[in-house]
């Protein structure tokens, strides 16, 4: 599903620094994998490369059988839209839009369905995550835990192949993080999505299928 071959990454400023050294990982369909490591070990950097947002690296990235490294920015945007769902540590909703609109936007961009179909599906996703009653509120008016669930709903809207998370529970209390973990786990099992989550939370990580441990830019 997702594979990296000999990925190297350098930061050029303030001084040249070798952040990622020869990273080779593989993610199977339906697998729930967490990446752990100390702060500054490069795990977030790796996630941004895997997400196709960061293109300044050496080596190859393959997603769903296609090589990403040669695609243009617009083609990569399409891949992110269609195949990858994101959950960030901070909730990253568009504050002036309604919760429902936030979930709908990636699907409207993809344009596979008409607006009514997208609206129905977005409501369905919000239902799954238990926040459908918030659908018509503006995104800045709901609580942190609710925001995180809305952003998971948004990540799911286009039925992506992979869901990536950067500390998705990092900002939540234990009850909410338990909730988020269960939601992700269920999705992984029932829909066959692959999940790749960067986390500090050892309890969270231990319950995933596999832990990739990182240190100093390499996989341990």
């Amino acid at each position: 599903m997702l594979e990296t071959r000999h990925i190297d990454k350098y930061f050029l400023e303030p001084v040249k620094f070798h952040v990622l050294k020869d990273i080779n990982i593989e993610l199977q369909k339906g697998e729930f994998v967490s990446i752990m490591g100390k702060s500054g070990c490069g795990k977030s950097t790796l996630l941004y490369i895997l997400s196709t947002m960061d293109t300044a690296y050496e080596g190859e990235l393959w997603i769903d059988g296609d090589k990403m490294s040669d695609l243009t920015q617009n083609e990569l945007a399409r891949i992110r839209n269609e195949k990858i769902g994101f959950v960030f540590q901070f909730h990253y909703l568009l504050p002036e839009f309604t919760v429902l609109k936030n979930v709908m936007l990636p699907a409207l961009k993809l344009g596979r369905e008409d607006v009514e179909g997208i609206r129905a599906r977005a409501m369905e996703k919000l239902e799954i995550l238990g926040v459908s009653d918030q659908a018509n509120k503006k995104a800045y008016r709901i609580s942190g835990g609710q925001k995180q669930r809305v952003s998971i709903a948004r990540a799911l809207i286009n039925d992506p192949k992979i869901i990536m998370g950067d500390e998705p529970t990092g900002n939540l209390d234990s009850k909410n993080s338990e909730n988020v973990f269960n939601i992700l786990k269920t999705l992984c099992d029932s829909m066959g999505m692959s999940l790749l989550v960067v986390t500090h939370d050892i309890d969270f990580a231990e319950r995933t299928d596999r832990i990739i441990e990182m240190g100093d830019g390499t996989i341990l």
Partner: protein
Amino acid sequence: MIRFPLVFDISRTHLLSKIKQTTVASLGVTFGIGTYIILMGFMTGLNGLLDGLILNRTPHIQVFNKTTPSEIQPVERFNKATTDLHYVHSVKPKARLERIHNALPLLSELRRHQQVKGATPQTTAKVFYLAGANKLNGVLNGIQVREEIRLFNFKDYITEGDVLSLVRRKNSILLGAGIAKNLSLSVGDRIQVMSTNGTTFSLLVSGIFQSGLAEVDDVQSYISLPMAQQILGAGRNHITRLHVKLFEMADAVPLARTIETLYDLRALDIKTANAQFDTGSDIRNLISYAVSITLLLVAGFGIYNILNMFIYEKMNDIAILKATGFTGTDVKWIFITQAMVIGLLGGTMGLIMGYGVSIFIDNLPFITEALPTIKTYPINYDPLVYISGVAFALTSTFLAGYLPARKAQQIDPVEIIRGQ
């Protein structure tokens, strides 16, 4: 592929959520376009008025007898071959008749010319206005009044009385306003004039003529052409000036040259006669364009600033949109659309404001001695000004939006997300 309905939807939400900034930005455009329209309407209206005042009333070509010394003196013809330098002291102009030789055939020849809209004959008679024991200097112009009205807006000069009375009664006179005041005459009174050969005529004041120039109004009056010829004791062919109006003012210079070469006459074109007026008109136009463009530029910078601010506030949104699959081009168009909406909104309000204030100015009283027929400030409602105003609003907002929007297009979402 860009989905414009979606782009528009996102832009609309952004604009509505920042309704205050949107309004301020639109108002910037409104004032820019509004003042542009007011200024242009007022300035071109004023220019049109002055054009009407001078250009429309001035003949494009005036033909009269020239009284200049001959350029080639007889001695030069006689001794042409020699290399001697001839020097003639105190050269005097050749004695000439005041009337134009063969004026009537020349007049019909001019009227047949395809560039000529019309031509009028005039006979000038120098007279004294008699008032008790006083004799005031005066000039009577004999005119064909209908042609003068048609070609040179003669009617605009008449402040009182009936201009066509010249046609109905041969001995009526349109008296200069200055003379009327000095001799305390009004419409319906009689005035005695004495011609240079001593004959006295009694004329009926049937109207008051006012050009706005005191030196003209104190001296000149208008009578019918036959009456002027009668005062001079001359025949129907006694004509001292021809006034020519062309379809195109630009043809005046070459045609005047042609007339001068064909006939032994002086032909004065309007460019030469009113050189200073032309320059004044050009400079007024230049100033109004310069001020208008400055206004629009200031509005453009206002939009640029506000959109730049929008984009800084929306960094997170841009990062999210890009992370969830929107392309840089989508993001660029989201912000350009916002700029264009501001431009369209502000431009439309500017049109309304410009039109409204123009109507207001148009109704302000503007009474001046010099312009008897003008009662309010002149305004030009040329649609071209309104069209160009909106066009400029849209172009400038597009440009002012394009630069910040391109910056938004190039924002790297990773940097924003990491930065949190």
